[in-house]
């Protein structure tokens, strides 16, 4: 404690001695600099053409000695237009500075402060809130898709209420967790952007390079996304009402064939030498002929889903008190039934000047969210055969012997159907004991009707700051607050809901998340002549607490009450039969992070720029010497166009800045207990009769503790240039980066004979490199017609350099499919057997290396190592889940009062693993897998498509790998804006628009699914060592909305 207090005092003292006296000159000029709101502190006042300069004090006063009567004073201040005043004979020059709208936009939020864009030396991308508000999505992350180079966003499921994955600088970033740090108004938000309303966002900054992110130290290795919400202004109140209403539909469905079509295919195939038609398939088609077929995919979906949003905000204030308050309501339906999110948000922000030297403010937001998601995956729908009706009708009731209500595969088990041809008298021969759909599962529609899965989230963020100007240019700021979220979720299933015989069951989970944060900084601004210096020193402390309640129960006497008080049987936590989560309360160790940080930013003549920062993080997640870690950074910039010798070219080359940076960032995203071995309950039964529970203890985790684990650190170099041509008509930002992550932190598989299957380790190094381009052009700029284009392009490559002295690490997914991390190659690659078509005959199999399971019609595996036999040694790498490049293009047209914009986004050269291949039904009813399949030696199809799942396990081969590249019209918007004059002063403004998302979506012919962005992310797929697996994703959603914004 003492050392900390000492440090604060030392830092204070260091800053206080820095101010200096201006050098004496011939003549003295003084005055006051102010804006509409009052005096401005820290305005730079420089005598033009010299290095002579001062800055204003707390009352906005300055005093400067100037050399001659023709002296000109230049007043500059971030966010304000420069003012030049010839001094003449005046001894007092008072200046009122005006906010420069264009310059204001150029203030960029960086960690613990802001910086003029022109002076940035790192790679920071900024997007204004206005680019997001017209997009018809309820989640801000989705709205960012395709807008920024180096930011990749993947809609892993089309369900609403499920946040997309978000990655800064490539999916190749490797760590325990690759999600970037999201900071909302200074607070880390583990839930990402889902609680922020797009309308409240003033700007989003993405700190892409390590030098910019290093000020966030141990959590910044995956990049930092900073959200700044709107603040009030000093004008009289202005009110904005914004609303939109829209509809969504499924973009594309699987091409599933009916049971009748499948029978016809079987008959045709039998005549081609294929397997004999099965009674079950005849029976299915026969039933279908009697009752018609069901389009199960349609049963899962709404024909049109709605999205509604209303937001009201008021902004305004006086000279000294400014406020912004907003309230919003959004209801977003997924295209699948039972999928909906409702959000209610409230936010208020106040900034008050208590004294010319003291500013105080708070920022409070409260959010309520309610979500509902279907219990079934979409695959349950498209796996169900078309002959099965949703509900029994009179015919099926009679046929199945009395079943009513929802139909179930098992109701049609052991039936008899007249499908065996006809006898000599022409009477049908009945096929006995056939089971057309041998599934114990209930039909998915009835599962939907009998289950509920929903949740809520109550969250509040309250933060207050207090800023004192201690001396001219020296400010102390403390910002303290808390972020609380309580999120319960509820599940209920009626009796027999999932399968015949399943009991009624319910579960309740809740998480309480509390984050306390105190940030204390000293900020010192100094301008001396052509030198500008900003110093920042700070101390932050953060404590995060997570507490969970989990309850699982069953045996509800009635399905009328769904809360757990009505349950008769509670499942206990120490259930080791491998099912159920159990009942209990769980509290994890609090996470404490305390940090010291410092940064210096310097510029000379606004031409030569330099910045350096360092952060020391201390985390409770690590043990012993691993507690501390340092994160330094340095960056340099050169504004070439500010050089006098560049002036002649300024008409063409209006801006050129070269940047270079180096920084170190870290990742402390390890799970609780990864360093510490802990014991849980592991009970057994002994004693007479039925015995009694005897308590036992064991390490019940599947993860082996490793006390040596430490921070993962990333060293990154970034080089960039900002180029402006023809007065900004063309501007280009280009960045290239090269980073090495060392002490790679991830959960590695271990030999299970240790008693565990995985463990956390720091075992290697990965290199990431890439290029990002952001090009903006103003193609036309006339009074009535303006056309702008924004293009972004990113290319990322990663390479594994070292992995714990091993050559490779292989990880398995849910179908035992393999992913390999091999030194010298892309971080994750698919790994398995390469195939060469299908086996055509037993003779062919016997004449070649083969597996015991091989049969004609199965995949023919290549003897890759050429040793004449097939073993696991024949597995090879089969491609990777990383795109070659990705891009986004936005075109905006302003034609009078009309504006039109469209955003095209795409990803090229990505390979996905399509897990649909696993299901037998895929090979029976999905047309994409039936075409050209092998039937018999004489009819081998195209020789590439296996017959069903014959032969060797196709999930272990290259067969499920498909090209996941796509290009889509992510958004198109047409708007019409009327200003105050048009509205005869009744309103301040009115805008009407129509917006559409995903109206067109194209993908590779090779791809057999319906959503190339879809990914599995749960259980083993949360491992960073597995990527690119998809199964059963919901269809892509296209959206059309109509909206209006009224300002008054």
């Amino acid at each position: 404690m003492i050392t900390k207090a000492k440090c604060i005092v030392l830092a204070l003292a260091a800053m206080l001695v820095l101010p200096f006296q201006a050098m004496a000159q011939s003549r003295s000029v003084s005055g006051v600099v102010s804006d509409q709101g009052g005096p401005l502190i820290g305005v730079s006042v420089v005598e033009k053409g010299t290095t002579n300069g001062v800055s204003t004090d707390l009352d906005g006063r300055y005093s400067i000695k100037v050399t001659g009567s023709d002296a000109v004073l230049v007043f500059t201040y971030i966010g304000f237009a420069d003012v030049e005043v010839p001094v003449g004979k005046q001894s007092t020059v008072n200046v009122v500075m005006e906010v420069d709208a264009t310059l204001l936009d150029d203030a960029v939020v960086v960690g613990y402060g802001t910086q003029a864009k022109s002076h940035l030396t790192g790679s920071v991308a900024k997007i204004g809130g206005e680019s997001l508000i017209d997009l018809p999505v309820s989640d801000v992350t989705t709205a960012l898709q395709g807008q920024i180079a180096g930011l990749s966003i993947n809609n892993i499921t089309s369900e609403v209420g499920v946040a997309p994955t978000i990655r800064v600088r490539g999916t190749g970033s490797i760590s325990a967790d690759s999600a970037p740090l999201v900071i909302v108004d200074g607070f880390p938000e583990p839930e990402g952007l889902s609680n922020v309303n797009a309308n409240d966002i003033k700007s989003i900054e993405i700190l892409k390079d390590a030098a910019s992110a290093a000020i966030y130290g141990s959590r910044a290795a995956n990049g930092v996304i900073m959200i700044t919400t709107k603040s009030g202004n000093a004008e009289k109140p202005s009110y904005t009402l914004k609303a939109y209403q829209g509809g969504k539909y499924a973009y594309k469905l699987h091409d599933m064939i009916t049971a009748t079509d499948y029978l016809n295919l079987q008959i045709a195939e039998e005549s081609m030498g294929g397997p004999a038609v099965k009674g079950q398939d005849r029976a299915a088609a026969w039933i279908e002929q009697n009752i018609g077929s069901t389009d199960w995919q349609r049963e899962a979906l709404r024909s049109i889903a709605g999205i509604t949003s209303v937001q009201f905000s008021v902004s305004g204030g006086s000279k000294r008190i400014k406020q912004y308050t907003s309230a919003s309501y959004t209801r977003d339906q997924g295209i699948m039934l039972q999928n909906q999110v409702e959000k209610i948000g409230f936010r208020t922000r106040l900034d008050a000047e208590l004294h010319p030297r003291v500013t105080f403010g708070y920022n409070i937001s409260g959010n309520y969210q309610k979500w509902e998601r279907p219990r079934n995956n979409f695959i349950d729908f498209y796996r169900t055969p078309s002959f099965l009706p949703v509900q029994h009708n009179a015919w099926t009731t009679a046929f199945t012997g009395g079943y009513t209500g929802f139909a179930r595969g098992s109701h049609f088990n052991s039936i008899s159907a007249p499908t065996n041809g006809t006898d000599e008298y022409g009477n049908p021969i009945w096929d006995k004991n056939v089971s057309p759909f041998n599934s114990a599962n209930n039909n998915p529609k009835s599962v939907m009707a009998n289950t509920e899965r929903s949740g809520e989230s109550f969250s509040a963020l309250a933060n207050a700051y207090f800023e004192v100007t201690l001396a001219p240019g020296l400010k102390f700021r403390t910002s303290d607050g808390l972020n609380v979220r309580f999120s319960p979720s509820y599940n209920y299933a009626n009796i027999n809901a999932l399968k015949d015989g399943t009991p009624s069951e319910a579960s309740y989970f809740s998480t309480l998340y509390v984050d306390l944060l105190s940030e204390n900084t000293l900020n010192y601004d100094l301008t001396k002549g052509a030198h500008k210096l900003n110093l920042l020193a700070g101390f932050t402390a953060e404590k995060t607490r997570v507490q969970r309640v989990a309850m699982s129960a069953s045996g509800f006497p009635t399905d009328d009450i769904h809360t757990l008080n009505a349950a008769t049987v509670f499942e206990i936590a120490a259930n080791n039969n491998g099912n159920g989560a159990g009942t209990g309360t769980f509290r994890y160790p609090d996470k404490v992070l305390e940090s010291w940080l410092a940064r210096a930013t310097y510029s000379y003549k606004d031409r030569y720029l330099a910045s350096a920062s360092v952060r020391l993080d201390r985390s409770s997640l690590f043990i012993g010497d691993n507690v501390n870690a340092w994160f330094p950074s340095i960056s340099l910039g050169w504004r070439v166009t500010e050089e006098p010798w560049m002036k002649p070219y300024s008409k063409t080359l209006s801006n050129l800045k070269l940047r270079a940076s180096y920084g170190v960032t870290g990742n402390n995203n390890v799970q609780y207990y990864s360093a510490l071995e802990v014991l849980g309950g592991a009970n057994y039964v002994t004693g007479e009769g039925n015995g009694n529970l005897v308590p036992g203890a064991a390490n019940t985790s599947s993860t082996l503790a490793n006390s040596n684990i430490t921070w993962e650190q990333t060293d990154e170099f970034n080089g960039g240039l900002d180029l402006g041509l023809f007065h900004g008509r063309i501007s280009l930002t280009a960045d290239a980066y090269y980073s090495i992550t060392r002490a790679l932190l991830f959960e590695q598989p271990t030999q299970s004979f240790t008693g565990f299957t995985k463990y956390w380790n720091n075992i290697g190094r990965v290199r990431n490199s890439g290029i990002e381009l952001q090009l903006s052009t103003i193609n036309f700029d006339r009074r009535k017609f303006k056309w702008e284009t924004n293009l972004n392009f990113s290319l990322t490559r990663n390479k594994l350099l070292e992995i714990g002295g091993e050559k490779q690490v292989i990880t398995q997914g849910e179908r035992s499919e393999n992913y390999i991390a091999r030194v010298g190659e892309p971080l994750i690659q698919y790994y398995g057997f390469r195939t060469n078509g299908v086996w055509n005959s037993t003779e062919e199999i016997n004449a070649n290396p083969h597996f015991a399971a091989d049969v004609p019609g199965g995949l023919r595996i290549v003897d890759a190592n050429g040793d004449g036999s097939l073993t696991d040694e024949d597995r090879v790498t089969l491609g990777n889940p990383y795109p070659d490049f990705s891009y986004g293009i936005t075109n905006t047209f302003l034609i009078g009062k009309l504006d039109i914009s469209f955003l095209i986004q795409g990803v090229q050269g990505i390979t996905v693993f399509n897990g649909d291949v696993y299901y037998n039904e895929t090979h029976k009813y999905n047309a994409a897998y039936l075409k050209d399949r092998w039937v018999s030696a004489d009819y081998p199809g195209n020789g590439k498509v296996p017959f069903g799942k014959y032969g060797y396990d196709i999930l272990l081969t290259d067969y499920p790998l498909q090209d996941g590249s796509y290009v889509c019209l992510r958004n198109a918007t047409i708007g019409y804006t009327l200003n105050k004059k048009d509205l005869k002063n009744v309103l301040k403004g009115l805008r009407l628009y129509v917006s559409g998302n995903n109206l067109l979506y194209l993908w590779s012919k090779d791809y057999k699914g319906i959503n190339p962005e879809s990914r599995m992310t749960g259980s083993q797929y949360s491992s960073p060592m597995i990527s690119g697996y998809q199964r059963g994703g919901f269809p892509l959603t296209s959206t059309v909305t109509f909206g209006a914004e009224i300002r008054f």
Partner: protein
Amino acid sequence: MKKILYTIAALVAVSCNLNQVPFSQVVSNEYVKDDKSVENLVIGAYNSVYGVVYSEWAVTELRSNNARMRVNQSTSADSKLIEQLDQGTILTANSWVQDYWDACYKVISRANSVLPNLDVVQDPAKKAQFEGEARFLRAWMYFNIVRLWGPAFIVTAKMGADEARHLQRSPEEDVYALIESDLEAIVDNKLLPEKQTGSALGRADLRAAQALLAKVYVTHYKAGETKYAKALDLLSEVLDASGNPASGADLVPFNKVFATDNECNAEIIFAVRYRSGNLGIGSPFTTLYAPINNGGNVAIGSPKHYNFPSDNLIAAFNENPGDLRKDVTLQESYYNATTGLIVTNNARYCNKFIDPNMTSEWDAENDFPVIRLADVMLLWAEVSNELNGPSAEALTLLNAVRERAGIPVYTLADLPAKYEFREAVRKERRLELALENQWWFDLLRWGNAVTTVNAFFESEPFYGNYDYTVNPIQKWQTILPVPISVKNINKDVAQNPGY
């Protein structure tokens, strides 16, 4: 100004402790302090046995001629795994093989976590017992592993990931040496009480260790070797301690051996014990084995219908009409109270571990026997016959089992020579212990697994209806592949031949 600094200092002070502790779990290196805490680790080791027996049917009965896959080309997610195990075309990626492997080694790891803490135990009797229990569990698991996979990874102490990565499999000889040294230590030093009673009923006792050691001897050694002969002495001691049935003591009626109201009966020497009542220690077998979609007529919930009895097994029972064991072992149909019909199509199921009173899924009462008296009796008869040919004493034991089953007894005239007696004992073992995960190990021990399975593929009508030919297996297919995950971590680990 001062106020502000004090406020900050206070805020900072609140959040400065970097030593955060878990609230909901116990840190293991602070845990062991007395007899009780070591005993808890022993119980924790027993607990991991649940994971082993859970999937044991799949690597034993399913691979033999006793059980098979239920339907051809089923849509069930497990169908491919079952098909592989049933037909001997097991892939290295088979996740059930992986699960069984993981589970066995988990028990070993937990047993190993007990042994270094024995010095903490004050009570010498308890100290001996804890050691005996840990070594019994470890030996039992290695015995399973060596029989199913051959060479094994020998782990006798806590092992870190780095050491594990470079460890190689040890030859079968070394594995057997470890198993024998563990069990011999228990038997020679009487580490375990002869018979567990009262509240300890269900924990391993001396008889269990002796019976297991006898099985190890007869598996690992041939009839001419000393240790094979020693097995007979061990088995005799077990029989004596269990109220020697050869001396005329009554056996527990067959239908009461597995009854939930008669647990730990005189027949049971060692069983994995379960307790229903939603304590997390219920038996999974009712849910695993009861018929699918039975509408609550056999068992509640949605059972898996695994361990599906083969036609071949039913035929073997039918050779002796009136065998009381048949209905206890398996049922060929069940009555559907909803429709009033008897369901016969693909309805047969393993009935030994069905608890009709189960009230929530995976939570049945039935214990799962690992070693029981009839097993020991038949083994005694078998070993005695191999050593000395048919004898009256061996015949008494064999006949006692048959008598209980309600089928005709043999005379010495029926089984005049070693060969006839051997065949009779083997047939009896199959029927007596059917679907108790013993038969596959017996076949491996006798060396007739390949011929038995191939004859089964030929005769079982089910395989004739297959889309493609089910191929005969070869000897290498009787040994499981080392799971792919092992080779994924260390590709230098030797795979079993053929895979």
